[in-house]
C-alpha cells in the first residue's frame, strides 16, 4: 500500500508551509514560469547568475504541498552550484522520484522525496520547479507539463 507518511514527511510539510527563498529577485538575470495545467500549479523561478554559477535564486507561485516544498528545497540545494551541477542534481532527483535512484547519497536532504516514487501521479508535482529551473538556465521563458 502506498505510504502517505513517506510522501508527506515532516520536512516536506514544513517547507510547504514555510517555503524558503519564496520571493522574486528584483535583479534576476534569468526567469522562467512553469505550469502544470493538470492541477493549476504555477511557479516562477528567478535566478541571479555569476557566469555559470547560481548565486541567488527565488521562486513565487502556488501549488500543492509536494510541488511547493520541492521548489523550496530545490532553491536551497542549487544555490551556489553551477548550472551544470544543478542539472546533474535534477537528474539524480528525477531518478529518485521515479523509483530508480542511482546515486541517492548525492541528493542529501532532497532524499526526503523518495516517497513520491510510490505516487507516480505526483512525480510531475515534485519535478515542476526543477523543470522550471532548467528552462530558466536554458533561457526558455515558460514550460508546461501535461
Amino acid at each position, binding site marked *: *500500500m*502506498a505510504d502517505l507518511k513517506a510522501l508527506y514527511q515532516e520536512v516536506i510539510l514544513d517547507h510547504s508551509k514555510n517555503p524558503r527563498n519564496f520571493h522574486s529577485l528584483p535583479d534576476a538575470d534569468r526567469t522562467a514560469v512553469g505550469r502544470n495545467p493538470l492541477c493549476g*500549479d504555477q511557479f516562477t523561478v528567478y535566478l541571479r547568475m555569476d557566469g555559470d554559477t547560481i548565486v541567488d535564486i527565488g521562486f513565487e507561485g502556488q501549488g*500543492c*504541498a509536494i510541488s511547493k516544498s520541492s521548489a523550496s528545497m530545490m532553491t536551497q540545494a542549487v544555490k551556489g552550484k553551477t548550472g551544470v551541477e544543478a542539472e546533474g542534481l535534477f537528474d539524480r532527483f528525477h531518478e529518485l522520484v521515479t523509483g530508480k535512484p542511482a546515486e541517492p547519497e548525492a541528493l542529501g536532504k532532497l532524499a526526503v522525496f523518495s516517497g513520491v516514487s510510490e505516487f507516480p501521479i505526483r512525480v510531475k508535482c515534485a519535478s515542476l520547479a526543477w523543470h522550471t529551473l532548467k528552462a530558466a538556465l536554458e533561457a526558455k521563458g515558460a514550460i508546461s507539463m501535461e
Partner: protein
Amino acid sequence: MATKTELLMDVGKVREDFPILKRTVHGKPLVYLDSAATSQKPRQVIDAVSDFFSRYNANVHRAIYELGEEATREYEGAREKVAGFIHARSPNEVAFTKSTTESLNAIAYGWGLKGKLREGDEIVSTVMEHHSNHVPWFFVQDLKGVKLKWVGMTDDGLLKMEDYDTMITKRTKVVTVTQCSNVLGTINPVQEIAKRAHEAGAICVVDAAQSVPHMPVDVQKIGCDFLAFSGHKMLGPTGIGVLYGTEERLNEMEPLMGGGEMVREVHLGSAKWNDIPFKFEGGTPNMAGAIGLGVAVDYLDGIGMDRVRRHEKELTKYALEALSDVKGFHGFGLDDVERRGGVISFTLGDVHPHDIASILDVEGIAIRSGHHCAQPLMERLNVPATARASFYVYNTPEEVDRLAAGLRKVLDVFA
C-alpha cells in the same frame, strides 16, 4: 434528512450492476465520487457493447445484409430511446456526436459560423460555463467578429438574472447556458432563459452535460433550440454524445463534418446534404457507443429520473451536513439542494486540493481536484483550484461518511 437505510434499499441493488464497484484501490473498497467527470457503467451497458461487437457488428445504414440490418435497427432504436428520454418531438431531432464538446462545436460552427451569424451579432453566455461551452464561441468571435458577453454570478453561485435584462439586445442571436454547473452544481433556470432569448429573437443553446444524466429533462418544456450532452456521464460508453436541435434549427444548420453518410449526392466540387439528423453524422458513427447509450437510457428509465434526482438530492443534503462538521471544510455554492445537483466543490483549510485528492486516493476515495475545465469560474471564485466530490445513482451515505473520515485524515497529515 435522508436516513441511511432509506437510501440504501435501492442503491444496494443498483451497485450490484456495476462491476467496478467491487474493486479495491490501495487495499480499500473503491468510493467513486467523480461521476461529474465520467460515470461508471452497469454491466447491462458493458454487455451491450460486447454483444454488438460479438454478434452483429456491421456498418449501419448502408449494409444490405442481415448484420447491417440488425445494427441499423439497434442504432436507430438507440436514437429513439434518447429522443424519448429528453422528450424530443421526433428522433430526427437527435444526432449522435462523440461528446458534448463535439455537439457544442457543431452548433457554434454549423449554426453560427457557417450558418446564421454575422459580424456584429452578439452571443450571451455566462461565467459559469465549462470550457467546452466557452471555446467554440471564441472561435466564432475570432473568425466572424461576433461579440461575446457573459452573465455574472452572485457569491452564492446563482446567475445574475438581471444581467440578461441589459445584455440581451436586439443584436443578440444566441443565448447559451449550462443547465447545471459542473463546479457548483447550481441548476440554472433554463426555461426562463430560453424564454428571454426567444423574446429577443435569439436562439437558446443549453449545455446539458450535467443535467440530462441527473434529472428529468424535457426539451419541449425548456423550449431550447439546441441541447448537448455526453453518454459517458450517464452510464453510457465513452465516445458518444448527443446533439439535440429542433427540426427548424437543424434544417437551417450547416454540418460541421463532411464525409460519408452525411451526403445525398457528391460531385467533384459540390455536394448535397442528407436529411436531418444524418447530415450531422459524417463518417462511420460510434455504433457500439450509441447502442450502449440506448441501454444506459433504458437503465436510467428503469430507475426513473425522478428517483435519480431525489436520490442525489438526499445524498447532497446528507453530505453538506456531514462535511460541514469537518474542520476547515469550505463548500462552494448553494445550501438549498432543490436548486443544486449532486456536485460539491470545496476547499479544506489551506490544504491544496491536489493533496486532498492524493490522500483520499490512498483511502480508496476518488474525487477530483483542479479547475474542472472552468477557469473563468475559478477566477470569479478567486481560487486557483477546488476539490470536488460528485454523486450518482450508485453512491451511498456510507460513502459520504468515508469521504468525511478521509478529509479528517487529510487534516491529520497536515496537522
